[in-house]
């Protein structure tokens, strides 16, 4: 009896086109599988996709709405991309985003209406970064000091952050909570003074939120940081070969801690953007329902951790989300957008495996031989 098994074998060399072809191909496969799902639910996949493209990018004002949806994804995407680059698997973008929102709204409320708008916005950016950065430092320190798994600790801290935000608005008479007017009956956050509302820049056909511009600038800065600076070089060595980094005199733990803080700060600025640019209020329920932190991981994976690519992927996924809001109705299942995003992530990760390895058929005895061959 001859049995065959499938075996993955690392590819020795990657052709130049492969890094680009894989995400694009994965995206197309995801659309294909999505089409099958749609067909089974009685929808015409072509018309659904056409409507998504229309409502995401083409129709009147659609692109402006897409940028609104893309802004938080841009920040959480950068958060994941920069952390994953050094092998720090920060799943905590969600919680760091929430902490950024808490800190950002806190400073805006504290400063009140009597400061110049520039000061209010700048302080929110800084405090958002501090809030998210501190929150990400916890798993960073736990990992480097006690070798705890950052995936678990950062994930758990997401729930802690959500509970803190809920407590501030629903379970206490905190500084963030509106205690007058309708707020007495229905718990909700204080509205930020209008001076602290972030600007939206009108370019005629498109309205660009200030937060999105800020995110683009940060993405460019991160690209330069990673490709051109000493710290970026250290990041690449630590991410690719931690033992070698140590051998070369780099202290991997320091790099990881710094990147953890940076990563959290990015998500935190995203949280500040969320309150400053869009909600103007600390809204725990809204934050939890959006799940920006988790979507950011999808963004980073699709962008292959490249910060500039994150901008474009955020717009793409933001478009799908935006179209999902616009199209939601009796003939358009609300879970569809989530299904599509999940399919895209799944196909991207699958595609990643196929890009790095080739699949071979082999007999079991070969498996033994190759597994035990001396290195």
């Amino acid at each position: 009896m001859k049995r065959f098994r499938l075996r993955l074998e690392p590819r020795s060399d990657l052709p130049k086109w492969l890094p680009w072809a894989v995400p694009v191909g994965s995206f197309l496969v995801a659309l294909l599988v999505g089409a099958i799902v749609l067909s089974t639910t009685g929808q015409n996949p072509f018309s659904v996709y056409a409507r998504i493209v229309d409502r995401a990018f083409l129709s009147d004002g659609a692109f402006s709405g897409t940028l609104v949806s893309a802004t938080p994804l841009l920040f959480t995407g950068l958060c994941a991309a920069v952390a994953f680059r050094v092998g720090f698997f920060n799943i905590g973008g969600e919680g760091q985003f929430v902490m950024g929102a808490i800190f950002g709204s806190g400073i805006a409320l504290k400063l009140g209406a009597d400061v110049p708008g520039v000061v209010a916005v700048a302080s929110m950016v800084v405090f958002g970064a501090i809030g998210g950065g501190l929150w990400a430092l916890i798993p960073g320190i736990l990992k480097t000091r006690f070798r705890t798994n950052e995936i678990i600790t950062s994930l758990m801290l997401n729930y802690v952050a959500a509970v803190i935000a809920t407590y501030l608005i629903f379970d206490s008479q905190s500084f963030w909570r509106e205690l007058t007017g309708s707020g007495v009956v229905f718990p909700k956050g204080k509205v930020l003074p209008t001076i602290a509302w972030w600007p939206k820049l009108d370019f005629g056909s498109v309205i660009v939120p200030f937060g999105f511009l800020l995110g683009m600038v940060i993405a460019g800065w991160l690209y330069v940081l990673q490709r051109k600076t000493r710290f970026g070089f250290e990041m690449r060595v630590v991410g690719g070969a931690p033992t070698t980094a140590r051998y070369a005199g780099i202290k991997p733990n320091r790099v990881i801690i710094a990147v953890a803080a940076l990563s959290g700060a990015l998500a935190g600025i995203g949280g500040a953007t969320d309150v400053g640019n869009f909600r103007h209020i600390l809204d725990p329920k809204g934050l939890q329902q959006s799940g920006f932190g988790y979507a950011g991981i999808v963004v980073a994976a699709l962008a292959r951790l490249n910060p500039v690519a994150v901008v474009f992927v955020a717009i793409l996924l933001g478009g799908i989300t935006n179209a999902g809001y616009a199209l939601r109705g009796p003939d358009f299942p609300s879970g569809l957008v989530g299904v599509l995003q999940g399919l895209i992530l799944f196909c991207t990760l699958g595609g990643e495996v196929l890009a790095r390895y080739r699949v071979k058929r082999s007999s079991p005895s070969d498996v033994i031989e190759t597994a035990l061959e001396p290195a």
Partner: protein
Amino acid sequence: MTQDSLVEAATAPAVAAFHITKKFPGVNANEDVTFDVRVGEVHALLGENGAGKTTLSNILTGLYRPDSGWLEVLGDRVNFQSPRDAIAAGIGMVHQHFRLIPTFTVAENIALGSAHDPINGRFDLAAIEERIVALSESFDLPVDPRAKIWQLSVGEQQRVEILKVLYREARVLIMDEPTAVLTPVESEALASTMQSMARNGRSVVFISHKLGEVASIADRVTVLRHGRSVETVTENDVNALASLMVGRSVESVQQTTESMSLFVAESAPVVLEISDLCATGDRGLKALNGVNLNVRAGEIVGVAGVAGNGQRELVEILAGLRRSSSGSVQVDGESLENGSTRHPIRLGVSYVPQDRMGTGLAPDLSIAENMALKKYRRPPVSRPPFLRQSVIDSEARELMAQFDVRAPSETTPTRRLSGGNVQKVLLAREMSGDPKVLVIASPSQGLDVGAVAIVHQLLLDAAGKGVGILLVSEDLDEVLSLSHRIAVMYEGRILDTVDRVDADVQRIGLLMGGQMEESA
């Protein structure tokens, strides 16, 4: 069964190998190996690292299939398709690194993987424990079957490994370097266990490089050298065994010396001075036990010895990757900070590790970036906070030309390079900062003959420029042909240092086997 065949079965070897050849890409791990193990015998396989001991035991236990040659068990030819066949034929392996589950009990570990419970097919832990107790009594292997593995000492864990094999009714036990992990007292107990197993009609194949214990425990010894079985002897004279194991005449050593001077001037300054260095290894045992060694400028000092005698710990301390527990290292008169990886770089200690891809290089980064790995903090490469890519690239191109690195370009990731080119990239980087000391571990391991010659020439060139070189290698030929002085390491100490001009190979062989004096 007739009377004759019974007699024959009783006298046929418990297991025998005939003309076994096994090749791996670039290596003939075993070549025409023939030997036999009698029933009730302790049979030692003696050889240096890479002599083919492990490959042979993997063939005996069915992990590998030989390219040619065959095995016989009690006179019958067998063809093992998998380890299961070998177990069924009564051959069991006691691995050097234990394969036990720490949170399971002794009995659970022993029962685990026994394909079928010989008692009644059920998982009857009480019956299993009973059988273990019986076995441990008859072979004098005291162990509590209900103890969890993590509670046991290393010696006790090894007993569990042995019991595991006996439980599967093995008649031949292959023990791979069993004393490597044991304390002297535990080793003695193990020796008596081996002899009691032999008295009980089991056969023991005992793999070792320690001459003393081989001579005292084994009934017969088969010596392997460069993959071949040299001879099977009943010898218990360590001197004779040492010559068989090392197997070179003194003349052959002297041949390769033409291209270098035999002596380094007494006046040459000492660039590396190691005094009373002690350290613990990964398992918490003492790995270095007072190492003293000097290297002069322009001198190549070879550290010979069988792997696992502290060489790895020694070089890791010099590179700052491991902390010493006491003692000191002076580089050109300055003390090396304990456990700092940057300080050795600053003092001019270059290090080419044995694990080139895993420690020496970042495989996904380009040749140019890898070459910049130790100079990116300093100008001209660094212009804070930026790095000057143009400088990185042009310096890499220069080094690639100088060291003849064959690659499409300096942007090629190092993981795509051949072994020889990887070593050239490493040497290029480590030599480029004008080092005072070069520490290099197993420089030619895994390289083809041509690449070995190039690497050796590069080392001789470096010594010619006045670099003090500490060459750590398990390949005795390499050490003998390159070194001015040879230091032999055994159990965390330099047993002795000999000048290459009067290097007596037999004596080095004895030292590698832990024998200080030439004695019978």
